[in-house]
C-alpha cells in the first residue's frame, strides 16, 4: 500500500473508475454536440441559445463540465507524479492545475446559467 493524499479519490480504484465513467460522459457529450452541429448547418444564435436554455441541456452540460474537471485532475495528477520528481515543482504544478480546473468549472456554471 502506497500512501497518497493529493489524488482525487484517495484510492487508485476510485480514481480509475472516475476516469473511465467521466470518459464515457465526455464521449457522449462530444458526439451529441458534433451531431447537433452537423444537423444544423445554418446555425444561428437564437437556435444555439435556445438549446442551452433548456434544463436538460444545462444538466447534460454541467455533467460534462464536472466530468471534464474530474478527468483532467486524475490524468494530470498522474502525469505530475510520473514526470515531476521535485516535490516543490510537483506540488506547484498540482496547485496551478486545480486552480485552473476550479476557475473553468465556476466559469462554465456562469455561462450556463448567467445569460
Amino acid at each position: 500500500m502506497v500512501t497518497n493524499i493529493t489524488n482525487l479519490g484517495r484510492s487508485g480504484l476510485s480514481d480509475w473508475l472516475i476516469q473511465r465513467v467521466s470518459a464515457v460522459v465526455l464521449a457522449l457529450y462530444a458526439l451529441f454536440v458534433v451531431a447537433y452541429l452537423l444537423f444544423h448547418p445554418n446555425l444561428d444564435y437564437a437556435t444555439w441559445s435556445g438549446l442551452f436554455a433548456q434544463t436538460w441541456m444545462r444538466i447534460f452540460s454541467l455533467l460534462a463540465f464536472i466530468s471534464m474537471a474530474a478527468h483532467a485532475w486524475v490524468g494530470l495528477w498522474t502525469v505530475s507524479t510520473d514526470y515531476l520528481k521535485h516535490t516543490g515543482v510537483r506540488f506547484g504544478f498540482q496547485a496551478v492545475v486545480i486552480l485552473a480546473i476550479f476557475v473553468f468549472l465556476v466559469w462554465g456554471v456562469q455561462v450556463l446559467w448567467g445569460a
Partner: protein
Amino acid sequence: MSNLQVSVYRYNPETDSAPYMQEFQIDTQGRDLMVLNILTMIKDQDSSMAFRRSCREGVCGSDGMNMNGTNGLACITPLSAVVKANKLVLRPLPGLPVMRDLVVDMGLFYKQYERMQPYLQNDSAAPAIERLQSPEERDKLDGLYECILCACCSTSCPSFWWNPDKFVGPAGLLQAYRFLADSRDNATQARLAELEDPFSLFRCRGIMNCVAVCPKGLNPTRAIGKIREMLLSNAT
C-alpha cells in the same frame, strides 16, 4: 562480408567516469547465432566484458538485456530476429541501476516481487494429506506460473521506469494474480488491499510493452485487468 558490427554498452564504475559504447567486429561465418553466442565471442576478444548468463536456454532468466532497442533473453534470441543493416546494439535492461557493462542491480525489481508475498497463504486447518485442486482450478494458473523473473517486462514499462519504488510492475503483478487466482490461497482480501492505491497497480496504463517483450509469451496486462476486475467487484 559476414562481419557483424556490434556496439556494446560498457561501464566499469571503478575506472570509467561515464558509460560509453564500444564497437566490435564479429565474424559469424554466415551463421544465425544467438545473441549470447556473440557476447561470448566478444568476451574472447575482451575478457573485461561483464554480463550474466547461466542456462543458455531461456529457463533461468539471467541474460535479459536490450538488443537493438527491444528487451529479451540473449540466449534464445537469434540474430535474424534483431539485427538490422548488419548492426547489433546491446544495452543493459533500461531503468535499473547499472553495476557494470550489461549487469544491472535487480534490487528494486525483487523488492516489488517480495511485496506481492509470492507464496501460498492459507489459514484454514491443513487437510490430512494435501490441498487438492480440480483440473479446472489448476488451469487458472496456466500463463501465470511460467514467469522466470527475467525482468524484461518490468524494465520495458515506462510506469516502472518513473516509479520503480511504488509501481509493482508487470512481473510482480503477474505473480500477484498467480496467487489471487489460486484456489488454495485465502489471503485474497489482504492481497487486494495492498494493490488498491493509485500507484501499486493502477499506474499501469495498458500500453502492453510487457506483453510485446515477454520471452515466455505471457500476458501481464491481462492479469492486471483480472486484478482490477477483482478489486472492482470487491468494492462496488
